[in-house]
């Protein structure tokens, strides 16, 4: 066990907690390397891994949207356009680290290695969480906004108490930063110097509500100084920048330097979910302008420009993505049957007599209706 004295408040140099005024980027929209980026360019291997996972992730995402149209998913919140954040953050995690995703972050969860069918159990309506969080070090995808931030802090703090080298990364949206839980999580993490990375994907909207109605701050990353937490503002459509920022924050957390707040500026290309009609609150023009800042195009241009990737490799990767999507489609195209008895099995560690009785009542009912 390590000694866990709370960090003494320091009145020296608050500036060190402030983010830059413009988002840090390593690659510009054309895929060119940005000079003096203030971030460490990832290795070519990492860049290629990011590219690969983004292609696969995007294909997964569009497949999931397609599955809603076929009625195979109740609903799906797409992360299209946010692939740099979804993938970059996850690739920067080490195996022993934990991910605390939201409903939006299926792509990130898949990138972390969770079977996509298990991921989609929630949205298929089969069960609330389809995967084993311990198997992947991925918490269940979280719907009540910002609540997962506190879980991440607690898990990370426990790791420190236990002397484990584990960092927790929590994903949040711009809207979620308005919730009280975000504030409490940032504060606990800063006071405890917990190994946590707060990764805010500012995609400009909380459903229909634009950032201007969510915050009047110079940037969301400017919240960090109010907790004594170093903060970074980055281009969330630059996979290299996301990876570099998160890797740096993970390394700092692992080194005992405490938490970091990262705001990644990005954009949600699709509607909030397939059930949402985004034309009610934003212009097509706005979407177009963000399409021009596409994270995949940017990375691909950089990699092809440097000769690290060619048409053949891209075609092979696209084919692989198609194969995966086809497999997913096929596996999702079966009617699953849930056992109603499951409803009563996990409420408590041991079933209570009353729940046992309710389970029997239901079983009797079902048997009777089969008889008829």
């Amino acid at each position, binding site marked *: 066990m390590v000694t866990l004295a709370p960090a003494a408040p320091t009145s020296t140099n608050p500036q060190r907690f402030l983010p830059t005024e413009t988002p840090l980027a390593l690659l510009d929209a054309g895929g060119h390397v940005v000079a003096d980026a203030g971030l460490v360019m990832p290795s070519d291997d990492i860049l290629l891994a990011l590219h690969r996972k983004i292609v696969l992730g995007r294909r997964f995402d569009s497949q999931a949207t397609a599955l809603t149209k076929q009625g195979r998913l109740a609903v799906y919140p797409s992360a299209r356009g946010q692939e740099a954040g979804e993938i970059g953050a996850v690739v920067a995690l080490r195996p022993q680290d934990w991910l605390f995703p939201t409903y939006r972050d299926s792509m990130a969860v898949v990138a972390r290695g969770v079977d996509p069918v298990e991921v989609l159990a929630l949205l298929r309506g089969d069960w609330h969480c389809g995967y084993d969080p311990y198997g992947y070090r991925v918490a269940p995808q979280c719907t009540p906004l910002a609540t997962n931030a506190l879980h991440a802090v607690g898990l990370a703090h426990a790791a420190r108490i236990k002397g484990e080298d584990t960092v927790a990364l929590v994903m949040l949206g711009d809207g979620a930063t308005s919730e009280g839980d975000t504030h409490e999580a940032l504060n606990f993490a800063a006071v405890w110097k917990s190994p946590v990375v707060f990764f805010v994907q500012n995609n400009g909207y909380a459903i229909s*509500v634009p950032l201007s109605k969510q915050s009047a701050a110079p940037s969301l990353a400017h919240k960090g100084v109010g907790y004594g937490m170093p903060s970074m503002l980055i281009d969330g459509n630059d996979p290299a920048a996301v990876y570099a920022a998160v890797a740096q924050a993970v390394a700092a957390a692992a080194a005992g330097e405490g938490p970091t707040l990262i705001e990644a500026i990005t954009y949600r290309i699709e509607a909030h979910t397939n059930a949402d009609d985004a034309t009610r609150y934003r212009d097509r023009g706005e979407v177009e302008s963000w399409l021009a800042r596409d994270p995949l195009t940017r990375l691909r241009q950089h990699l092809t420009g440097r000769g690290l990737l060619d048409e053949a490799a891209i075609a092979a990767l696209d084919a692989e993505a198609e194969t995966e999507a086809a497999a997913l489609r096929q596996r999702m195209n079966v009617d699953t049957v849930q056992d109603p008895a499951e409803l009563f099995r996990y409420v408590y560690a041991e079933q209570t007599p009353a729940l046992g009785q309710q389970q029997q009542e239901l079983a009797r*009912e079902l048997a009777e209706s089969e008889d008829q």
Partner: protein
Amino acid sequence: MTTLTDRDLEKAPIASPVTMAGALNRALADALREDSSVLVFGEDVGTLGGVFRVTDGLAATFGEQRVFDTPLAEAGIVGTAIGMAMNGLRPVVEMQFDAFAYPAFEQVTSHLAKLRNRTKGRVALPIVIRIPYGGGIGGVEHHCDSSEAYYTHTAGLRVVTPGTPADAYALLRQAIECPDPVIFLEPKRRYWSKETTTLQHTAATLDRAVVRRPGSEVTLISYGGALGTALEAADAAAEEGRSVEVIDLRSLSPFDDETVAASVRRTGRAIVVHEASRFCGYGAEVAARLSEQCFYYLEAPILRVTGFDIPYPPPNLEEHHLPSIDRILDAIDRLQWQDSSGTVKADG
């Protein structure tokens, strides 16, 4: 602050088909029009018109000062509504889904419910908190809670839930005019059910239950999302020759003892039907108080047909959780009916 416009005159009482969502929308529009102190705010209620479109078009009609989106924070919404009401406005706020009202629980419980009492009536909080609640729409977790018992146990709140479009209109109008804070629970699976009716401000009374279907042998006491099921069950029972009365409570708090006890004394048998979990659910209060008030009239124990004592199920299992017609009919069968020979039929 009441300003009537000539658009009021347009409201000719001609019956037409209307959904509950449409009726609620009309209620908000009419309240906004008639009383300039009424405000509508919450998450996505402005430009988008709400995720269920209940506030559709209101921002365009009444402007951003009166109908607006807030930052994403439910305690913030309720807490600022309290401050606005202290300053003479009548906020009607939306919590996007049942479980997303929980962050506001302290503001609701420790302030909204208590400020009038705390100040000996000097500070009134005429606030309506609209909460789409309950299941039956295939929603994922946290989108289907029946959270009424949390509010009905809290003294100082009124808790109301409409079962029909006409009631939705009338009850919301009255809730907005009510000087007490009202938790207005909208059964989301009834949002799109239509009724041909005229929307009238005076049709329902905020704290009175209504007999939706008269009957003489059993009283089904229900509300909100389960009401429709109770009515269908009553129809099915009628085909089997059983006369079932169905009461729509509408006001969960205060409880209309008069209407309900009269029915139960008459029928001698009662079943409470609701979606929420049974344990310490709202039906417990109904059963407890009626067992006390009608003790000598009861032919059988008051039964509860409710959701199970489990977290709300995933969409593919929710049908098993929700009170069904069959489950209600089964319960009716268990109400100690005597056959002509005088022996009890049910296995009780």
